[in-house]
C-alpha cells in the first residue's frame, strides 16, 4: 500500500464524499413540499448542568428520534407541526415536552436524576429499547455511577477494571490495567481522555489506572464498529469524557481511602455560562506505612502516584462554546539504589460552533505527552539517568450535519504530529564513567479524513456507512535503517529536516446495518477496517512503564484489521432485561511479535527484533443485563479463539496469541437493600493464559537450561476470583448539604492464589531437583473508603 497513485485516490475519495452529500440533497428535496424546521439544543442534568451524552430524544408522532452527541447536543429537522418529544436517559426521570415547530427552535432539556430508583417510572416502551433501535453494536457504555459501585482493588474505583468485566474484553494479567479486546493486543486499544491519546493508562505497574473516576462523566468502549471519526488502532476505542463541572452551584466530592485520597471541586464561575472542575488524587502508602518499616533505608523509600484533572467550559452564546481540559499524573518510586518516574500529560482545547441549527462543528487542539525516567543516585562511578519521552500534537475538526431525522452525516479531518524520543541514557556527575547512549528521535504525521452517514432506510432498517482515509508519513530529520531478509543491517539512510521519507495510506470502510424485527428484538451486522500506524514495543505479558511506542517505517508495515460482526438483541420483561448475542470474526495482517530472546530496551536496531505475520480471532459474546430495579448488573460470557502465524516464530506454525482465553465469564451484581445500603459483587472466571513451559533440561555450569515446548503450548491454571463491596450511605439531610458514604470492599473474597507467573527453578539444597513454583500477587485484600459529597 505504498503511495503510488495518490492523486487518483484523492479524486476517488472526493467523489465518494460528493455522492454522500448528493444522497442528502435527495432528502432535502422534500423541503420544498413541506416546510421543515429544526429543533436543536442540549440535554443536561438538572441538578448540576452537566451535559448528557447519548440521551435519547424521541418524536412520538413520527416514531423517530435521535441521540445527543459527545457534547450533549442534538438536532432534529422536522416538517412544521406540533410534536411531543420524549427525552430519556438511564438513571434519570423522563421528560415529555410538547413543541410547536413553526420556526427553528432551540431548547434545553434538564433532566432530574432518578434518585428513588424502583419508583414506578411512567414511560412508554419505545424509549426503553434504545439498545434495540440504535444502529450501534459491539459498544458498551458505562457511567461513572455504575463504575463506582463495582468492588475495586484496595478501594480504588477504576474505569479500566470495569471495562474488563464486559464481554469480549480480557484482562492481560492479574490486577493489570492492560486489556485485550476480541483477541487484539493491548497496544491496539485507542484510549482517549477528552480526545487526547493516553499512551500509558497505568499507575504502579498497572494495578491502578490513571483515570480518576470522580472527574469522569462517561465511558464508551467500541469493540468493533468504531465510528469513522476515529482511527489509528486496530481493536478498540475507549472514549473517556471528563465532567464539565457543576454549572448550578459550588459542589465537592471526595474520598479518604486505604491507599489514596481524592478531592474534586466544581462550580459555576459565571452562572449557567462558565463552570469549572478540578480533581486531584494522591496515594500515601509511603507516608502511611513506610515510616514504620524496621529497616531505616526502607523508611526513606518513596512510592506514590498522583493525578490531577482540570476542566473549564464557557458558553459564549447559543452557537459557541469553549472547553479547556487537562490531565497530569505521575508515578514516582525511589529506594536506596534507584529512582523511577513516569507519567502522562494531556491538554485539550475545544470550540463547539453551530454553523446553523443543524450543522454542528467542533474544532479540537490537543496535546498529549508520556515520559519516563530511570536513574541511580548521583555521584557514583555507575550513576546514570535514562530518559524517554513521546509527544503528540493534534488538530481536528469534526462536523455533524443533522440533515433530517433519517440522515445524520459526520465528516471531518484530523492530523497528528508524533514526536517520539525513544530514549537516551547517560552518566551523571563528574565521576561517572558512562558515555551517552542516544537513540534517534523520530517524527511522523498521521492524517485522517472521513465522512459517514447514518441513514434510516425504512422504519425498520437503518444503514450506517462511512469511509475513512488515513495516511502516515515519516518525517525528517530521521534515519531509516534497512534490513536484509535475514534481519542484518543493509543500509542506513539519513534524511534532513522536513523531508517526508516514507509514506503509507489506506482506506478504512466502516458499515453497519440494523434491522428491527419487533419492538423488542433486532438484528445487527457490521463491518469495519482499521489500520494502525504506531505500535508498542511490549514484549512482556504485563507491560512496564519502560515500553516504548515506535512508528511504522520502511521495515515496519502498518497493521490492518478487517472485522465482521453480527448480533441479535432481544429485550424481555418490558425492556428491563436486555440480552444480546454477538458473533465476530477478525482478520489481522502485519501483526507484530518479537523474535526469541528479543532485546527491546535501548536498542538502536530494535526493528531487527520484530517479526511480522497474520492473526485471526473469532468468538461469540453473550450478555444479559438488568439496569434498573433493586437488583441490577450483568452476566457476560465470551467464547473465543485467537491465533497468530508468524514465519520465524514457532517454526512458522500457528500458535495461540498471548491473550487467547477460550472461556471468559464475568458476573456483576448490585443489590440495593434500601436507599442507603447497597451490596455489590463481581465474579470473574477465565481460562488460563497460554504459556510456554520447559519440556526438558540440559545442564550447563551448574544450572539447567530449559528446553522449551512450542510457543504457548501450555496454559496457566484457570483464573477465578470474587470481589464484594458494601456501600452505606449517610442520611440525606435537607439542612446540611454534606453527605457521607462508607465503602467496605474485599478483593479476592475466597483468597484464591491465582497464578501470576509460573517459574521453573532449581532446588537450593539439591541441585539435581527442579520444580515448578507459582507466584501470586493478591491474597484477600480488604479496604475501606469514606466518600463525601457537598
Amino acid at each position, binding site marked *: 500500500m505504498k503511495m503510488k497513485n495518490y492523486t487518483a485516490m484523492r479524486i476517488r475519495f472526493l467523489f465518494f464524499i460528493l455522492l454522500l452529500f448528493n444522497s442528502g440533497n435527495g432528502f432535502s428535496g422534500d423541503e420544498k413540499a413541506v416546510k421543515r424546521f429544526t429543533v436543536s439544543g442540549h440535554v443536561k442534568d438538572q441538578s448540576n448542568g452537566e451535559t448528557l451524552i447519548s440521551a435519547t430524544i424521541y418524536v412520538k408522532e413520527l416514531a423517530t428520534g435521535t441521540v445527543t452527541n459527545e457534547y450533549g447536543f442534538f438536532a432534529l429537522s422536522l416538517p412544521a407541526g406540533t410534536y411531543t418529544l420524549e427525552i430519556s436517559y438511564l438513571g434519570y426521570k423522563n421528560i415529555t415536552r410538547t413543541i410547536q415547530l413553526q420556526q427553528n427552535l432551540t431548547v434545553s432539556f434538564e433532566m432530574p436524576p432518578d434518585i428513588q430508583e424502583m419508583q414506578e417510572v411512567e414511560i412508554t416502551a419505545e424509549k426503553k429499547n434504545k439498545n434495540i433501535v440504535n444502529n450501534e453494536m459491539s459498544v458498551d457504555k458505562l457511567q461513572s455511577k455504575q463504575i463506582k459501585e463495582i468492588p475495586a482493588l484496595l478501594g480504588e474505583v477504576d474505569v479500566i477494571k470495569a471495562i474488563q468485566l464486559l464481554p469480549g474484553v480480557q484482562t492481560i494479567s492479574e490486577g493489570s490495567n492492560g486489556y485485550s479486546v476480541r483477541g487484539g493486543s493491548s497496544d491496539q486499544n485507542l484510549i482517549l481522555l477528552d480526545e487526547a491519546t493516553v499512551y500509558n493508562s497505568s499507575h504502579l*505497574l498497572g494495578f491502578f489506572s490513571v483515570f480518576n473516576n470522580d472527574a469522569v462523566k462517561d465511558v464508551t468502549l467500541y469493540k468493533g464498529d468504531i465510528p469513522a471519526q476515529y482511527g489509528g488502532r486496530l481493536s478498540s476505542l475507549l472514549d473517556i469524557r471528563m465532567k464539565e463541572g457543576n454549572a448550578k452551584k459550588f459542589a465537592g466530592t471526595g474520598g479518604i481511602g486505604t491507599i489514596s485520597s481524592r478531592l474534586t471541586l466544581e462550580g459555576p464561575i459565571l452562572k449557567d455560562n462558565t463552570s469549572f472542575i478540578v480533581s486531584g488524587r494522591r496515594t500515601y502508602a509511603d507516608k502511611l506505612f513506610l515510616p514504620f518499616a524496621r529497616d531505616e*533505608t526502607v523508611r*526513606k523509600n518513596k512510592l506514590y502516584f498522583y493525578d490531577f484533572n482540570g476542566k473549564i467550559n464557557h458558553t459564549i452564546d447559543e452557537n459557541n462554546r469553549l472547553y479547556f481540559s487537562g490531565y497530569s499524573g505521575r508515578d514516582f518510586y525511589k*529506594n*536506596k*539504589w*534507584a529512582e*523511577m518516574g513516569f507519567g502522562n500529560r494531556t491538554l485539550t482545547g475545544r470550540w463547539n460552533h453551530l454553523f446553523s441549527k443543524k450543522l454542528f462543528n467542533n474544532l479540537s487542539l490537543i496535546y498529549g505527552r508520556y515520559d519516563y525516567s*530511570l536513574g*541511580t543516585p*548521583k555521584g557514583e*562511578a*555507575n550513576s546514570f539517568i535514562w530518559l524517554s519521552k513521546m509527544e503528540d500534537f493534534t488538530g481536528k475538526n469534526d462536523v455533524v450535519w443533522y440533515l433530517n431525522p433519517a440522515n445524520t452525516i459526520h465528516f471531518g479531518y484530523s492530523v497528528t504530529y508524533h514526536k517520539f524520543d525513544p530514549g537516551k*541514557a547517560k*552518566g551523571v556527575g563528574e565521576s561517572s*564513567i*558512562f*558515555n551517552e*547512549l542516544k537513540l534517534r528521535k523520530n517524527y511522523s504525521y498521521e492524517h485522517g479524513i472521513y465522512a459517514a452517514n447514518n441513514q434510516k432506510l425504512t422504519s425498520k432498517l437503518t444503514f450506517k456507512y462511512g469511509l475513512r482515509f488515513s495516511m502516515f508519513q515519516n518525517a525528517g530529520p530521521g534515519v531509516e535503517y534497512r534490513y536484509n531478509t535475514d534481519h542484518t543491517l543493509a543500509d542506513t539512510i539519513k534524511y534532513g529536516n522536513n523531508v517526508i521519507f516514507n509514506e503509507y495510506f489506506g482506506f478504512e470502510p466502516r458499515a453497519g446495518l440494523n434491522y428491527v424485527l419487533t419492538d423488542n428484538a433486532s438484528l445487527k451486522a457490521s463491518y469495519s477496517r482499521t489500520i494502525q500506524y504506531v505500535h508498542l514495543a511490549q*514484549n*512482556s*505479558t*504485563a507491560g*512496564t512503564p519502560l515500553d516504548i511506542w515506535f512508528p511504522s517505517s520502511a521495515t515496519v508495515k502498518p497493521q490492518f484489521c478487517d472485522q465482521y460482526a453480527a448480533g441479535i438483541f432481544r429485550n424481555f420483561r418490558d425492556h428491563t432485561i436486555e440480552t444480546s448475542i454477538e458473533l465476530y470474526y477478525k482478520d489481522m495482517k502485519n501483526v507484530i511479535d*518479537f523474535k*526469541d*530472546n528479543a532485546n527491546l*530496551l*535501548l536498542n538502536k536496531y530494535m526493528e531487527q527484533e520484530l517479526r511480522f505475520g497474520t492473526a485471526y480471532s473469532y468468538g461469540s459474546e453473550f450478555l444479559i443485563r438488568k439496569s434498573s430495579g433493586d437488583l441490577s448488573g450483568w452476566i457476560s460470557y465470551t467464547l473465543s479463539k485467537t491465533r497468530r502465524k508468524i514465519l520465524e516464530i514457532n517454526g512458522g506454525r500457528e500458535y495461540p496469541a498471548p491473550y487467547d482465553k477460550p472461556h471468559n465469564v464475568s458476573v456483576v451484581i448490585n443489590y440495593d437493600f434500601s436507599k442507603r445500603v447497597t451490596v455489590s459483587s463481581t465474579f470473574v472466571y477465565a481460562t488460563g493464559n497460554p*504459556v*510456554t*513451559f*520447559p*519440556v*526438558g533440561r*540440559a*545442564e*550447563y*555450569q551448574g*544450572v539447567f*537450561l*530449559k*528446553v522449551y*515446548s512450542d*510457543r504457548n503450548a501450555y496454559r496457566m491454571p484457570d483464573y477465578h476470583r470474587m470481589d464484594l463491596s458494601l456501600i452505606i450511605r449517610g442520611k440525606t439531610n435537607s439542612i446540611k448539604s454534606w453527605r457521607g458514604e462508607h465503602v467496605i470492599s474485599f478483593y479476592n473474597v475466597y483468597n484464591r*492464589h491465582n*497464578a*501470576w*507467573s*509460573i*517459574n521453573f527453578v532449581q532446588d537450593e539444597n539439591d541441585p*539435581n*531437583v*527442579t*520444580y*515448578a*513454583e*507459582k*507466584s*501470586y500477587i493478591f491474597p484477600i485484600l480488604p479496604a475501606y473508603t469514606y466518600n463525601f459529597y457537598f
Partner: protein
Amino acid sequence: MKKYINIIITTLILAGCTERIDIKVDNTYKRLVVDGCITTDTTKHRVKLTTTSDYFYNQPSPPVTGADVRISDGSKVFLLAESATEPGVYETTADVYGEIGKTYILSIANVDVNDDKEIELYTAESRINPVSPIDSIKLFYTALGPDSVFAIMVYAQDPPTTEFYVFKASINGVLAHEKATDLWIQDDVLFNGNYTNGIWSQFLFQSGPTKRPEEHVAPGDIVTFERNSITKDYYSFLAELQSNAYYNPIFRGPPANTRSNVSNGAIGYFSAYSIARCNRVVPAKPWILDYPY
C-alpha cells in the same frame, strides 16, 4: 548498564508470594549437552558431555561416555581424555593454554545420543579475544536488599574496541561464582574506551538470607577479581541463560530456548576466552559504601 537496570527494577518491585505446584509437562527427544571451554590459563581444560532429560528428572544429568573429544586451533590438536572419576568429563593435559587471537574448534565424535545406532559428529568453535589488564580493585561493605555484601569496585582502562566481559571472583584461590547464573556479564556499550573508575563489577555475600558459605569473606582473605573477555555470541548465550533462569513475566517476552554454538542440534556452549586478574587482601576494617540518600 542493562544489568543495573534489571537489578534496579527488581528492587523497585513489590515481591509476590510463591508456592510450589505440580505441573504436568510432556517430554522431549534426547539431545547432546556440551559444557566446555578453553582459556588463556595453563591448566587442564574441561569439556563435560551429558544428555538432556525430562524437566522433572531430578537425578544427575546422564553423562555421555566413550566420546572422542578434541580441541584444535587449526594447526595443533589437543586430545581430551575422559576423567576416571567423573563420567562424561573430558580433560586436556595440564600444560595446555589458549592463545589470544586464535579460533578453537571443538569436535566430538563416536557418540550416539539419539539412540538411532548411527554415530553422530558435533563441532563448535570460539575465538579468544584480547583482554586488557586491571589496575586495581577495591572492596566495599554494603547492603544489597536483605543481604550484606562485599561490592568489588574495578579500576581499569577499557580499550577502544567493543568488549564483552564476564566478571567473577575467587576467595583464597577458590572460585566463588561457579554457577552460570552468578556471573556478571557486561558489554562496554556505555563506557567503551573510558577508564572504569571504580565501577561495581561483582559482589560476594557476607551475611543475610542469600548468604552462601563458600562466599564468606573474612579480613585477611585474598579476593581475586577476574575479568574474562568473551565473544559477543557467548555473551548473548549467557544473557539468554540468565534471563531464562528465573522468568519474570513483567520484564520478559515468552521464554525461548537458549542459543548454542554446537552443531547438529546440540545444546550448551563451547567457549574460549582470555582472563585478566587482580588481587586484594580483605582489610580489617572494610570501607563502607554509602550512597548519598
